[in-house]
């Protein structure tokens, strides 16, 4: 090898405390170094030109630059050496600024350290090999999992960008949690009015294929080329024939079916359409309650259906699609609040969740928008809202803040007053978190204009007073007093967690999730919609708590990522990935077990089992390399020999 070493002064940033000239001279004593010099600003145009010139003049086959952190300028210099005809990986950097000149003033020690760091870079470079990226074709389509507002936004943006979208929703309709809401804060505009048009757009967009009542069974493959198996659950109604006329739901004799869409606040029929604006507006049969399916006797819906869409023999169907990218937007579910025995543990009919309360408020809800008590159907006059039920509570292992409860509680208090002008609302809260645009102003309005009584403190117990009302016992921590409120209805702001089944999906997608099941983003600040699996993006609450505007923004952001990914016809992989030497592999499978990305598979090679890295899936962490006992799998650019060369240079006995 012929190595050139370039020591950067970085003005006085390095040269102030490192003798750059001496460091360059010392490099000449290193093996394979044929040229060494010091430069004022290596990253500047003249510096880069000097490197290119030296590569030509001295026939260099490798370059070491001793300057700032490789996290800063490694890409810059890689391009420099590439311009001069070298492979970009025949380059190493010695970080003599952040790790030397900036952290000490001892010129002798600094210069000695700089010389050693250059020595390490040379030692590693001598073991480097040229690496080449591979280009591969991609399928330009995207799978969006979850049809809540985030998924809808992502799907629409991708579709508008010209990308075919497959939207999978496990419920019979898209819309997610937002579709269940009455109004949205802080503008108190109608949720259905703003979401509805978007849902219709989804249904009508030529680039979107919607699979409702469906779930992702399996995903294999890698960025650009995922194979997805989607399970379309049996609805017993042929949706290609169903027109959503609703005749069946009117005639269905099984009328005591808990209404899931209404959060079980009312009853519906065994065959039903979740709500009037449902997309797709198609009927489906709940097989648990359908008389035909449970007893074999009935069949009324089939008789009345004008298009003969009912099919009692329908089975789950698996369809396979190819996509190039995946957006997970699986949203959230409420935690099981019945662990709070002090709130009745679910025994008191008039202690309900805020989402149930939304359905009571909603004009298309089970009560037609009239707030009534579930127990006796009477209008409540005193309503208590309890915040942080399952949020910020270490005692049940849920220290997280659910983020949006403060705001919707204020909204619900406002709406309560609107619906029942002579009512009084009480809110037990810990802190009011109102950090969004116009959010604090809105909360102030709830208190000041609508007379909502905010009590800072937690509720220790709720019990029925025997006269049809409930006593809420708590502490007002501002006054330092115990407080008891007798009320007609209690609304709990129940904490959220990732939607049930999110962890299973994460495993299928090979992405990580945290203790609440929320998916882990690529970087908490800088890669908030990416995951560590290339080609898989996140949108909405599945990544962490957020309100509607943030979910929509993240949906658009994820779509932008997908569109950027698909702006190229072929993808290039990063060649700093692991490779198996089949001659040394004994197929013990340890690497396969450890790979966090499922990037290693077993294959038969000349009649023997061997491990094989899927180039496009490997992310280059190297866990496999440190796991393989015989070094048969090596991470390119961080091979055992490359690292050992650095160790051995430093530790020579």
């Amino acid at each position: 090898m012929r190595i050139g070493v370039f020591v950067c002064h970085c003005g006085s940033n390095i040269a102030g405390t490192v003798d750059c000239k001496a460091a360059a001279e010392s490099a000449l004593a290193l093996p394979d170094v044929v040229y060494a010099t010091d430069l004022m600003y290596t990253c500047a145009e003249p510096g880069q030109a000097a490197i290119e010139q030296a590569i030509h003049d001295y026939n260099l086959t490798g370059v070491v630059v001793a300057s700032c952190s490789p996290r800063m300028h490694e890409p810059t210099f890689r391009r420099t050496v590439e311009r001069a005809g070298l492979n970009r990986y025949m380059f190493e950097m010695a970080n003599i600024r952040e790790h030397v000149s900036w952290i000490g003033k001892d010129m002798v020690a600094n210069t000695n350290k700089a010389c050693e760091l250059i020595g390490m870079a040379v030692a590693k470079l001598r073991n480097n090999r040229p690496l080449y990226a591979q280009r591969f074709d991609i399928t330009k389509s995207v799978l969006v999992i979850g049809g809540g507002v985030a998924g809808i936004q992502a799907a629409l943006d991708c579709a508008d960008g010209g990308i075919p979208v497959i939207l999978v929703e496990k419920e019979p309709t898209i819309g997610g949690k937002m579709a269940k809401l009455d109004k949205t804060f802080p503008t108190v505009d109608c949720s259905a009015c703003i979401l509805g048009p978007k849902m219709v757009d989804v249904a009508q967009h030529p680039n979107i294929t919607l699979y409702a009542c469906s779930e992702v069974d399996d995903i294999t493959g890698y960025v650009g080329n995922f194979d997805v198996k989607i399970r379309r659950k049996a609805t017993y109604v042929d949706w290609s024939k169903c027109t959503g006329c609703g005749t069946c739901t009117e005639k269905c004799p099984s009328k005591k079916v808990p209404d899931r869409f209404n959060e079980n606040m009312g009853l519906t029929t065994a065959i039903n359409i979740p709500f009037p604006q449902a997309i797709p507006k198609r009927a489906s049969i709940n097989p648990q309650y359908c008389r035909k399916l449970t007893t074999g006797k009935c069949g009324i819906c089939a008789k009345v259906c004008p298009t003969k869409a009912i099919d009692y023999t329908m089975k789950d169907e698996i369809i396979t699609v190819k996509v190039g990218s995946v957006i997970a937007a699986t949203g959230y579910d409420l935690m099981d609040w019945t662990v709070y025995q002090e709130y009745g543990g679910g025994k008191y009919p008039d202690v309900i969740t805020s989402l149930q309360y939304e359905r009571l408020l909603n004009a298309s809800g089970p009560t037609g928008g009239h707030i009534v008590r579930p127990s006796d159907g009477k209008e409540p006059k005193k309503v208590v809202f309890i915040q942080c039920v399952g949020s910020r509570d270490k005692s049940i292992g849920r220290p997280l803040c659910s983020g949006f409860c403060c705001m919707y509680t204020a909204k619900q208090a406002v709406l309560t007053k609107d619906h029942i002008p002579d009512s009084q609302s009480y809110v037990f809260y810990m802190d009011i978190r109102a950090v969004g645009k116009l959010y604090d102003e809105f909360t102030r309005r709830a208190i000041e204009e609508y007379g909502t009584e905010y009590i800072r403190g937690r509720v220790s117990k709720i019990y029925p007073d025997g006269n049809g009302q409930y006593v809420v016992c708590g502490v007002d921590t501002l006054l330092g007093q115990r407080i008891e409120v007798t009320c007609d209805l209690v609304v709990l702001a129940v904490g959220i967690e990732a939607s049930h089944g999110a962890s299973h999906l994460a495993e299928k997608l090979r992405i990580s999730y945290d203790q609440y099941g929320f998916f882990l983003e690529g970087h908490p600040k800088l890669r908030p919609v990416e995951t560590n699996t290339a080609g898989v993006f996140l949108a909405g609450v599945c990544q962490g708590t957020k309100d509607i505007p943030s979910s929509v923004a993240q949906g658009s952001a994820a779509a932008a990522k997908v569109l950027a990914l698909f702006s190229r016809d072929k993808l290039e992989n990063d060649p700093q990935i692991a490779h198996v030497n089949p001659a040394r592999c004994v197929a013990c499978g340890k690497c396969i077990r450890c790979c966090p990305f499922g990037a290693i598979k077993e294959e038969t090679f000349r009649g023997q089992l061997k491990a094989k890295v899927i180039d496009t899936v490997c992310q280059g962490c190297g866990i496999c390399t440190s796991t393989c006992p015989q070094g048969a799998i090596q991470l390119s650019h961080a091979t055992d020999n490359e690292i050992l060369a650095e160790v051995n240079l430093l530790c020579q006995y």
Partner: protein
Amino acid sequence: MPVLEGKELRIVAFLCNWCSYGGADTAGVARATQPTDLRIIRVPCSGRIDPLFVLRALLNGADGVLISGCHPNDCHYSAGNFYARRRLEVLKQFLPILGIDDRRFEYTWVSASEGQRWQQVVTSFTQRIHELGPAPRLEDAEPLLEMADMALKPLRPLGTGQKAPLDELKACIKSKIKDLDVVIGWQQGYDAAHTVPLFMRTEEDVDRLVWGPFNVNNPATYVNEMIGKAVPLDKVKKIGVVVKGCDSRSIVEMLQEKLIDKDNIVLFALPCEGTFDMARIDRELGRYSKIDKVEYDEAGVTITADGTPHRFCITDYAQGKCYNCSMPLAKDADDIFGTAPEITGTPSTPPELAMLDAMTLEQRFSFWKGEMDRCLRCYACRNACPLCVCKDYCIAETREPHFISQEWNVREKIYFQYIHAMHLAGRCTLCGECQRACPVGIPILALRQQLVRIIGQLFDYKSGMDSTATPPLLCYKVEETNIKQREL
């Protein structure tokens, strides 16, 4: 390269690119003054760091080694630091048995934003190493030889196994042998006091099967080359193995690691009453005496060698592992004959390990120097190991990767033992074949015993007991129960 005389010590750091290297950059950008001793090697992920790098550095004269990665849950590759945490904790706890002060090695987590924390980590680690002073060198150590005291109490009565239902076993093997490519057992060797592995293919072969305290070899050692994953698919056949309880653990471990397929192996088991430590018998008889005959009784044997009878009671002359054995009869075998004896009491510290436990760090360092000096690098220890499945490709003899050189010194010799031990971490069942195979009697089992102890304490895990368990270093927990974070 030389360390600045009198000023600096040699401290090597391995930093993950995404968090800690960035943290060190952040510290630099903030002009956070730090000692100059540290030299940073950038790796993609803390999971990339092979504990062998650390051992190489420490053996080659590093005075301290520091590793830093992303905080748990923040790994760029989602799980690299979880694997690293397990492996590095095992390494840290392993060092003292080698005579290396474990304070010379530390691992921690620093994020890319934590420049100040990085400064603190470097400063306090460097200070710690300076307080410890230069690391002792193998060259300077005075060789020390010491012998373990083998006087032990078994957890169950030991015997000579002469009442074991061997004939029933033979009949069973004969009935199955047609369906099996081979059945491995033991036969008499060149004299009555030595057995050698027997490979049964015919009924006549089965008649040569013996059972007793001389059945020292672990037949599991041959399993991988017959039905292991590296065997060409068209050559894998179904085999049978006669096992003692300890042998079966090796096979269970192989099943656990999915190195072999249960469909390809049939286990035949008899209750083992203990096997002889041939090293101690040879010491009594003289290693080269001619054996005239061996007579069995219930508690031992009388070996007549060069005309003189010598009586060996099994309770006094069993292999070290037999005293602590709590599974004399393989529980997962397909065909079991006889019943397992009752186990009473709790296992004691193995004698080799107890000896090292009683030593100071300096003494242990000297001990390994003294012992490893006579190693001929024949690799009998490795090749006798039933779990060394990559022995034909062992890094002890390769250039790619080039972990170890052929230079003749204790450093290279002992490094191989470190490699072997680390590669067995969480896998070794303490069958003792490595030590038994060593022609020059180096007590290398102690290294494995220490690892097994560490793994047991850290992960509440015993290898080779449950074929469905996952070996502890091939998995992780987000919250580790027994790994306590140390502050730097």
